[in-house]
């Protein structure tokens, strides 16, 4: 059976992992390649690298980093952050990335999704959405790393993006991100059950139960987290054994 996936996310700035990590076993905790390789060895199913510098002058650093990651890691990985053109994507995929994620640029120029899907195949186009539930009870799309609100509803944008060629949705709830109180089950479930593509839930995972909930109750295909893995609050092998004990199919 196809398994549910666990995806550690590494934020990269100037070629280094940020948000801190806490691994005594690493020689250099800031090196994304070393940390990624460790997660791969522990049983992570995929990795996501988000470049939060993502300015044009840093792009070259990123493509070199992607090449190093691809050389050392034997599981699939996605690269995101500031991607806005077919050319950007071409460089990253040619350097060994398996998928790329687009966010703000795709919202501003939706045809980008169509161009990327036609050029590289929809399987490598991940649409990242940052969303927040407002007082009216609706989930809205936010841009620029959550700094700019739009009037577009999350589900409407996700559906349109899938129609344009997005092959996967990486959904981050800003209400839940950083709280460690659990994933946003309702909006994740809406997307995961009503769209024909896999949905990666992100934001709020704090305990092993939270992961079980987002797979069982929200039908998420994958769940992403960062600091709980970086600070060893949850070890991936323990998490997988727990999920298996809850009847969830995972790769062990």
């Amino acid at each position, binding site marked *: 059976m196809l398994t549910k996936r666990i995806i550690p996310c590494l934020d990269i700035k100037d070629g280094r992992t940020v948000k801190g990590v806490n691994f005594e076993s690493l020689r250099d905790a800031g090196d994304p390649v070393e940390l990624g390789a460790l997660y791969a060895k522990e049983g992570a199913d995929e990795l996501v690298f988000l470049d939060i510098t993502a300015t044009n002058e840093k792009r070259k650093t990123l493509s070199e980093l992607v090449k190093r990651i*691809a050389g050392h890691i*034997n599981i699939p990985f996605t690269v995101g952050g500031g991607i806005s053109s077919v050319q950007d994507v071409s460089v990253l995929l040619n350097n060994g990335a398996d998928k790329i994620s687009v966010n703000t640029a795709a919202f501003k120029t939706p045809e980008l999704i169509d161009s990327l899907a036609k050029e590289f*195949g929809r399987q490598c186009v991940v649409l990242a959405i940052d969303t927040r539930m407002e007082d009216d009870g609706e989930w809205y799309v936010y841009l620029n790393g959550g700094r700019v609100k739009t009037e577009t509803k999350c589900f409407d944008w996700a559906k349109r993006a899938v129609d344009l060629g997005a092959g996967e949705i990486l959904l981050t709830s800003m209400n839940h991100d950083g709280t460690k109180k659990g994933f946003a089950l309702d909006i994740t479930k809406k997307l995961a059950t009503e769209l024909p593509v896999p949905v990666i839930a992100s934001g709020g995972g704090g305990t092993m139960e939270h992961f079980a909930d987002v797979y069982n109750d929200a039908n998420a*295909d994958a769940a992403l987290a960062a600091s709980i893995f970086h600070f060893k609050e949850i070890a991936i092998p323990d998490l997988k054994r727990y999920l298996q004990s809850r009847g969830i199919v995972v790769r062990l």
Partner: protein
Amino acid sequence: MKLVIIKYNAGNIQSVLFALERLGIDALVTDDHEEIKQADKVLFPGVGEASSAMKYLQNFHLDWLIKELKQPVLGICLGMQLLCSHSEENDTKCIGIFEEPIKRFDDTQGLKIPQIGWNNIYNLQPPLFKNVKENSYVYLVHSYYASLGEHTIATADYIEPFSVALHKNNFYGVQFHPEKSAEAGSIVLKNFIEL
């Protein structure tokens, strides 16, 4: 040993090169007929769409060249599908080594298409799967699949059981990505190199 990766318009070549590098193997990426013919082993990876890939292979007469190869050949993902006779993807006549037809997953069964992620493989047969444990997990991304048939050497289930690997004479094919399938994948690549 000379290992060649066939260069065409549907390669995901970098990751395959890196996986070989981790096994200590250098490979030559080329579409040169003589280089390919002289290789000890030939890898035929691919990610993309069947009809445009076949058209490209035909334009460079690579389809006939591949069919005539006598050394071990390993098709990966789309590469494996192109080694079959026919694909439902844009009704494409393929190279025609394996008779198993390539069909599209039935999208009325409530499962997402493409299948993206890790799935277990079983009924594993040597030599390609020597030392790979039954029900090992491998990484797959695909909307089309090879039916079960006489050349099936590994099976996986998604919507229905299908050929996740094929073997006939000197030709091998795997639907999954050995270059992205952690330990199980690198054993398969190593087995192919050691054939």
